[in-house]
């Protein structure tokens, strides 16, 4: 397979054209709060101004690899579980030592999720654009249950603040962020006191005891690292009701 041609596509045009942001909603629309990512994308689509690309991947597995090309920044929006109060928003650069594999990830294609897709890209040394996860802390995954109030409010916060979020991500993208490499990622992981479990398919919590060995992706900053790095974008966590989301650049 040809390597994704992001490097060529960016090249000289970069300074003259606006950055391309892609938002990918993941989750299961039939399992309570798990559909939060899909719902955010659905609401954004209602007032879409064409400034970014909106995709939904309710069955995010290997197919996630197909949406990694042709954008400068990709924001995955998914339900997460870290023990924080429901409705907390987590904005995390990827790859992240805080993101656990789904457990069955390496084992069954039913278990493939974002972490596994990133690990495979890393193993193949594919270059990728800047990647972020916007995690919405869930309260319930019960089938047929309505979304919890806290998650409903968080969804609206994201939708209302989307213009600022989008601007922030694009600024970060062109600010030549330093990327964490594979070994650093593992080292941090072993020290991490809490971890997020991204849920791309609605079955996370059942398999939280995962294969830690593959739990973190690695270094694919590639073409965005063409200048000396200065600083790392630290994960940001916004408790329910925090109006400062997504924060400044």
């Amino acid at each position: 397979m040809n390597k994704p041609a992001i490097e060529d596509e960016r090249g000289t045009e970069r300074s003259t054209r606006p950055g391309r942001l892609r938002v990918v909603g993941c989750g299961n629309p039939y399992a309570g709060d798990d559909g939060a990512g899909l719902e955010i994308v659905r609401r954004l689509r209602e007032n879409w101004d064409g400034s970014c690309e909106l995709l939904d991947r309710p069955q995010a597995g290997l197919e996630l690899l197909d949406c990694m090309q042709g954008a400068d920044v990709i924001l995955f929006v998914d339900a997460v579980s870290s023990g924080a109060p429901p409705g907390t928003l987590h904005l995390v650069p990827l790859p992240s030592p805080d993101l656990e594999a789904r457990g069955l990830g390496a084992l069954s294609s039913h278990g493939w999720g974002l972490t596994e897709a990133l690990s495979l890209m890393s193993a193949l040394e594919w270059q990728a654009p800047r990647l972020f996860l916007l995690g919405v802390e869930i309260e319930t995954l019960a089938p047929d249950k309505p979304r919890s109030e806290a998650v409903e409010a968080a969804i609206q916060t994201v939708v209302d603040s989307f213009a600022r979020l989008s601007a922030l991500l694009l600024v970060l993208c062109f600010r030549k962020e330093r990327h964490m490499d594979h070994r650093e990622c593992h080292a941090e992981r072993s020290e991490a006191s809490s971890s997020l479990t991204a849920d791309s398919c609605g079955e996370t919590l059942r398999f939280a005891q995962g294969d830690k060995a593959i739990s973190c992706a690695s270094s694919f900053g590639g073409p965005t690292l063409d200048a000396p790095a200065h600083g790392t974008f630290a994960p940001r966590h916004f408790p329910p009701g925090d109006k400062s989301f997504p924060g400044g650049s």
Partner: protein
Amino acid sequence: MKGKTIKVDYLARVEGEGALYLRIKADRVAAVQFKIFEPPRFFEAFLRGRNSTEAPDITARICGICPIAYQMSSVHAMEDAYGIKVEGPLRALRRLIYCGEWIESHVLHVYMLHAPDFLGYPDAIRMAKDHPEAVERGLKLKKVGNDIVTLLGGREIHPINVRVGGFYRVPARRELEPLAEKLKWARDAALETVRWAATLPFPEFEQDYEFVALRHPDEYPFNEGRLVSNKGLNIPVREYENHFVEEHVEHSNALHSVLKDRGAYHTGPLARYNLNFDRLSPLAQEAARAAGLGPKCLNPFQSIVVRSVETLYACDEALRIIGEYEPPEAPAVPFEPRASTGCGCTEAPRGILYHRYRLDKEGVILDAKIVPPTSQNQKCIESDLWEFVPKYLDLPHAQLQHRCEQLIRNYDPCISCATHFLKLKVDRE
């Protein structure tokens, strides 16, 4: 090796949740259990009361890997009930969408789930570091299969464009042209896949299976044909339940299917290949021969080569269909509901998938029966283990366990599909 237990609590690289339990006593196998503990899913129960036209969309949800198989078996069953026949370009488009599913499902298994066994890796991610070209070929090839399903089915997973009588929308010729370009690459990549798979190391192990597959007068089977076996079975699909029965065993949430008075049988790529080698395209036959396979293949470990040959066939067949395609006048054949019972059996990537529906005069489903391929292969998997383990008792424990898991993966078991309505039996003394 004396008394010993091999226990795998979570089988890796299979679709869904299953386990293996094996007891060896005094160098003899004392117990084999291929356990499916994924909870039952009750699809047959909640199809009751739904309209026949909803069955393809509901049953597609049984599996994210092979939804087309469920759509195809359900629509053929409904068309059998209503006495209509879907022919010409609509029939060809159904074969085409099935080609897409075989490609994506087979390639996923060959490269991501099965190959790591032969090359000595715990998973495809770690295999990818040393074999990036192969994994990238697999990913790109799988995507061509997904692209076919997306174009004809509306989206790649749980497609929504298949309906009783045909499709909701059919493509124009020009929409298929970009697909043809991708398929030309895919056909070469599939040929390379056959060559590559043939170089893998296979344990010596042949079994005298009863193979069961569809057989059509002049096609490699997807949607139509009689059910045949290499041991004398030759019946129309309607007689399925006179010859096959489902049994509940305590250690599995999936019913075991057996041939009446004969027991285990083998369905899937190996069965199709052995019963239909002469129906493969010349290119696929030639590639199989070059890979060292004859018209018969009795070693289940070589199923990875057979899956690759079927992938090649699917690319070849898809190109043939696209080359001959003229859009039909209407996207679907009209029908009138009537009280009736209909049966359908099609060749899912993992083997025959049987559906039977009883409908009232409005077309409402009164009851449904669905027999997926993995539930049919469970007994065969267990009998393989009974035969295989005594031959390899000298292997160190970890290696023997790995071989047993690999043997199960030969069947590409889709446990999520296989688990369905469980009859409750209470023994009281």
